[in-house]
C-alpha cells in the first residue's frame, strides 16, 4: 500500500499537466486507501469493526469519483485545456 501511495505521488510529479495528474492521484485513492482498509480489516478480525471499515470503503468509492469529477469539471470550467502541456520545472530549477 505504501508502494501504491508512493507511485501515485511520483506520478503526480511526473505527469505533464493537470488532467494527467488526476489519473496519478486516482491511484492513491483507488489502490492505497482500500489496501489500508483491507489491512485494518485483517487486523481487527471478524468483528463489528470490520463492518465499519467496509462501510468506510463503500463511502470512499462513492465520494472519491464525485470529488475527482468536480475537480476535472472545475478545471475545465476554469479554462485549462486538457490537451495542453504545461510548463514543467526540472528538479533543481529556480522558480521565480
Amino acid at each position, binding site marked *: 500500500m505504501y508502494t*501504491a501511495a508512493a*507511485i501515485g505521488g*511520483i*506520478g503526480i510529479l*511526473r*505527469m*505533464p*499537466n493537470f*488532467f*494527467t495528474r*488526476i*489519473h*496519478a492521484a*486516482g*491511484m492513491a485513492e*483507488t*489502490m492505497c486507501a*482500500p489496501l489500508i482498509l483491507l489491512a485494518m480489516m485483517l487486523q481487527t478480525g471478524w468483528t*463489528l469493526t470490520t*463492518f*465499519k471499515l467496509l*462501510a468506510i470503503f463503500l463511502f470512499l*468509492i*462513492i465520494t*472519491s*469519483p*464525485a470529488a*475527482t*469529477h468536480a475537480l*476535472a*469539471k472545475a478545471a*475545465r470550467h476554469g479554462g485549462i485545456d*486538457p*490537451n495542453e502541456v504545461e510548463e514543467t520545472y526540472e528538479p533543481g530549477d529556480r522558480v521565480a
Partner: protein
Amino acid sequence: MIRNLALAAGLAVLWLLLSGHYDPLFLGLGVASVALTFFIASRMRVVDQEGAPHTLIVRAAIYLPWLMREVIKSNVDVARRILTPSLPIAPRTFTTRASQTTAVGRVLYANSITLTPGTVTIDVRQNEFEIHALTSESAEEVRAGRMDRRVTQVEGAG
C-alpha cells in the same frame, strides 16, 4: 410499500451493526432513531428509486467485485507507465455514449469510469459522457463498452 419496508429494515440493520449495544435501553433508542430517520425521509419525499434503490443494491453488490478487479488491473497499468522512464502516455479527450436510461445508472457508470485509473469523466450531457483518458488503450477500453453493458445490467428494470 416494499420500498418503505426495505428502507426501514436497511436503517435497522445499519444501526445494529454500527452500535454493537444490544440492551433494551439502546435498542429502544435505536428504534426511535430509525423511526425518526424514516419519518424525515418520507416527509422529504426521497423514498424513491434514487433514495432507496433496494433492488439495485443487490445487483450492485454483484457488480462491485468485477469493478474492483478492473480497478486493480488499470492501477497496475498506470503504475507501470508512471515508473517507465519514458512516461509512455498519450492523453486524449473523447465523447462516448452511455446506454443507461435512469439517472442512477448514469451516475454509476460515470463514477465507475472515474474510479478506474487512466480514465476520468469530465462532463455528462444526457447520455453523452466526455472522458479524459491517459492512454489510447484505456480510451479503447471505455469505447469497447464492456463496463457500459455491465452497468446497464445492474440498472436493470429499476
